[in-house]
Every structure is written in C-alpha cells, then in structure tokens.
C-alpha cells in the first residue's frame, strides 16, 4: 500500500473512532430509556429527539441564527476588548495598579447574577445577550494576553534593544507575535463561555433564541423539543469552537 492510501486509511480510521463513540452512546441512551422504562417527559428516547430535530429544523435553524449572532458579536467584543484591556495594563503600569484589582474582583462576581440587571439597563433586545456573552468571555482573553506578553523570551527582548528597536517596533514585531499562541489559547477558552453568556442572557429575558426555546419547551412539558434545542446548542457551540480552532492553528509557532 502506498503512503497516500495509508494516510487516507488512517484518517478514515480516526473518523470511525470518533463516530463510533457517538453511536455507542446513542444506542445506550435509546436502550436505557426502553429497559428502565423512563417516562418520555423525563428523558425521551434519542429517536424521538432526532425526530423532533428534523420536524423543527427550520425553526431550530432560525433560533440558532439568533443565538449565534449574539454569541459572535459578544465573542468578538470579548476578544477585541480583552486584548485591548490587556495591552493597556501591559503598557501602563498605572493601568495595572488601578484596573487590575477591579478586574479580578469583577471576575469573582457570579455573572449570572448580573443578567437581570443587564436586561434593566439595556433592554430585552439583542444587546443584553451580547453584553452577557462579552462579560462571560473577556476575562480569559485578558489573562492569556497578559501572560503571553510577559512571557516574551528575555534574550529576544535584549536582541531588539541591541538593534535599537523602538518600543512600537518591539511590540509589533516581537511581543505581539510572541504572545499570539497564548492569546489563541485564551480565545479558545472564551468561546464556550460566550455561548453560556448568550444562553443565560436569553433565559433572563427574551422572546427569541435557543435559550428562550428551552424555557418554552420546558413550560409546555415538551421534553423532546427541549432536547432538540440542546442538540442545536451543542452543534452551534461545536461549529463556533471549530472555527476558532482553525484560526488558532494558523499560529503554528507555539512551543518551538
């Protein structure tokens, strides 16, 4: 067998391994509901969940687009804001002394508890969900950016000093690229947090989105629809994380 075929074979095998886990878990679910005679309003069998997904596919997609939009906006704000906050803290020691303690205190707050306040402040619309996604997601970006900047190898900093690089050149050509692998780690951590933020935002006050759909399905005791919404959320979160990971993989110089 030639190399290309062997590679294709092993990648097919790896895919099978991944799919196999889901199939086994799915079968266990389906059979367990049957064997233990679990009532459908507690745990519907997988087949009826999948049926519900298929029946409600248009509606699920619409709601996923709503929630997805909130997540993407909040996440983008978190990455941008997190990096900017970190840069300010890194560049100005006074910003570090003044704002870092505030930031850490804020991070200690259960942000779920802030959700009702956000609705009061910015209303029932998209903005309160975007704000929640932002608040959940920005902190790891700040921390990872700061860590990356501080972790710039000392001998490279000395080299840049020796060639008389300006602070701006040092930042743009050394510190920022050196920090990128760490920043990417922060971005990966932040993605699922943004999802949680948006869903929590929808729980507190909303007429649209997958979080709202979960509450609605719950109120109507339609557990199959609730699970369908959960499937949609995991699919959405998975796709978004995968996109972030693809972008992060472009920063290939980590751990060299």
């Amino acid at each position, binding site marked *: 067998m030639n190399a290309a075929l062997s590679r294709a074979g092993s990648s097919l095998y790896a895919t099978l391994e991944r799919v196999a886990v889901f199939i086994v878990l799915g079968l266990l679910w389906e059979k367990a509901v049957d064997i233990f005679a679990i009532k459908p309003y507690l745990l519907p069998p997988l087949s009826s969940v999948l049926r519900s997904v298929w029946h409600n596919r248009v509606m699920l997609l619409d709601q996923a687009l709503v929630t997805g939009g909130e997540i993407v906006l909040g996440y983008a704000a978190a990455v941008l804001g997190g990096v900017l906050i970190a840069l300010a803290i890194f560049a100005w020691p006074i910003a570090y002394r003044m704002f870092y303690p505030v930031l850490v205190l804020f991070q200690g707050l259960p942000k779920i508890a802030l959700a009702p306040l956000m609705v009061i402040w910015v209303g029932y619309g998209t903005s309160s969900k975007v704000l929640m996604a932002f608040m959940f997601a920005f902190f790891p970006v700040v921390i990872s950016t700061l860590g990356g900047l501080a972790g710039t190898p000392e001998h490279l900093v000395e080299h*840049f000093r020796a*060639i*008389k690089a300006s602070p701006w050149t040092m930042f743009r050509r050394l510190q920022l*690229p050196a920090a990128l692998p760490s920043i990417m780690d922060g971005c990966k951590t932040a993605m699922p947090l943004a999802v949680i933020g948006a869903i929590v935002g929808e729980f507190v006050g909303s007429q649209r989105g997958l979080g709202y759909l979960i509450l609605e399905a719950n109120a109507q005791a339609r557990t199959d629809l609730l699970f369908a919404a959960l499937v949609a959320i995991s699919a959405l979160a998975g796709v978004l994380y995968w996109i972030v990971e693809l972008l992060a993989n472009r920063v290939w110089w980590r751990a060299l």
Partner: protein
Amino acid sequence: MVAGIVKISILRKGALEAAIRVVRVSKTFVGADEVRALDDVTFDVGRGEFVSILGPSGCGKSTLLRIVAGLIMPDAGGTVEVLGHSQTAPSNDVGVVFQTHNLLPWLTLEANIRLAAEVQGIAAAEISERVEAMLPALKLESFRKAYPHQLSGGMRQRTALGQALVRQPQVLLLDEPFAALDALTRDQLNVELLRLWQEIRKTVILVTHSIAEAVFLADRVLVMSDRPGRMMEDLRIELPRPRDPHSTKGRPDFSRYVLHLGALMGIA
C-alpha cells in the same frame, strides 16, 4: 616566561587607532546579594583588530561585552567609547551575536536577517542587495525560506551572524556565539568566521572560554580572572595570517601560546 611571547601594554599600541576604549570599568549588580562582576577593567581595541576575551565561566566577560554594547551601564567612574562616541546606549555601529540565537521562530531565515536591517530604517532594495551578497558567504543560500526550527544549530548561529552583519556595523561583539555547538561544527564556523573577517576587517571582540579558539582567531587575547573579573593578561598573538586549522594549530608557537594561557588560567 616562554620565549617568543611578547606582552604588549595598552600604551605601546598607540600607533593603532582605537575603535573601542574601555577605561576603569567596574560593575556591581545590586540585589538580594551584591555581586561584583567586574573590577576596574581597562583595555582598548584597535580599528580592525580581532581581540578575544578569555576567562572562566562567571568571570563577568559577558557583562563586559554587554557594557561595550551599551546594553547595560558600568558603575559610575567607568567609561566606554566606541569609535570616539561614549557608549551609553546601543548603537548602529555595533553588532552583537549572543550564545543563544536571536531568531524569531515565526520568520524565515531570510526574513530574520532582513528584520535586523529593517529596524535600522534601511530601504528594502538596499537590504535585498546586502542579503543577496551575504547569503552565499554564510552558506545559507538554499535555506533562505526555512524557519529556525528547521535549521541546524550551526545554521542558526550563522543566521545570527548574518543578522549582525546585514547592519554593516563597524564593530562586532561576539558572546560565545558557537559555544552551544558540537566541537566539529564549532571549528568549522570559526574557520568561516576568520575568512569572513579577513574580507570585511571589522573590529571584533570575541568572548570565549576556549583557549585554543581564542588563540587561533585573535590578534590579541585578553585574559580575565575569576569573579570579580579583572584583566590579568594582554597577550599579542603573532601567528601569521591567513590562518587555517591544520598549519596554524600545528605550529610550535601556537602550542606555546595555549600552554602559557592555560597556566595563567590554572588549568595547564
């Protein structure tokens, strides 16, 4: 003292114009414990001269080199002049190569070399010209698109040398640039360094703890004592140039220099 070895005092070399003048330089690092790294060091290096600074590890020779480079300041009272200017900050006249290479992992070999010149504000076309002229001399032509992690240790140090040379400094400061390499690669790079130096005739200070390397390369060897580093010896090496590993290292006077320096450093 061994015959044929002539000690040259700083004053007697007045004929040679000094490129580097180090006067009464001391350095104490203040911290939890005060460490006196250098104690009253005075020497100068003539224009185009190749000087090796030899000393045991931890004797402050790297500190001395960083002071000459303007990266750290000596204690009050000491002065460093490079090409007539007081060296209180890094300058474009001076190129430095450290033991650990300074290559950015996210840039290709060529981009790494270019960067050092770009920072200096040299026009892109001029940089390209310099790089094209330099890559063959450094034997790096076919690796220009490679990233540092794809290069051998020797190639990385050659690239680091290229980073310094592309800026066309008048003075080259080398801090054990080949110390991390295996003996064979190291010897080979020393030969190449010598050939390069013969072409460009820059003023060079090489810091090393290898006696044979210091003697083989240099016009003069300065020997430093253990910490706090003091100048113990200023020895002119009268070996003919061009030098090559076989004939030069086979000469009786080469062995005499090595023995003499070894005795000074207490390892002969």
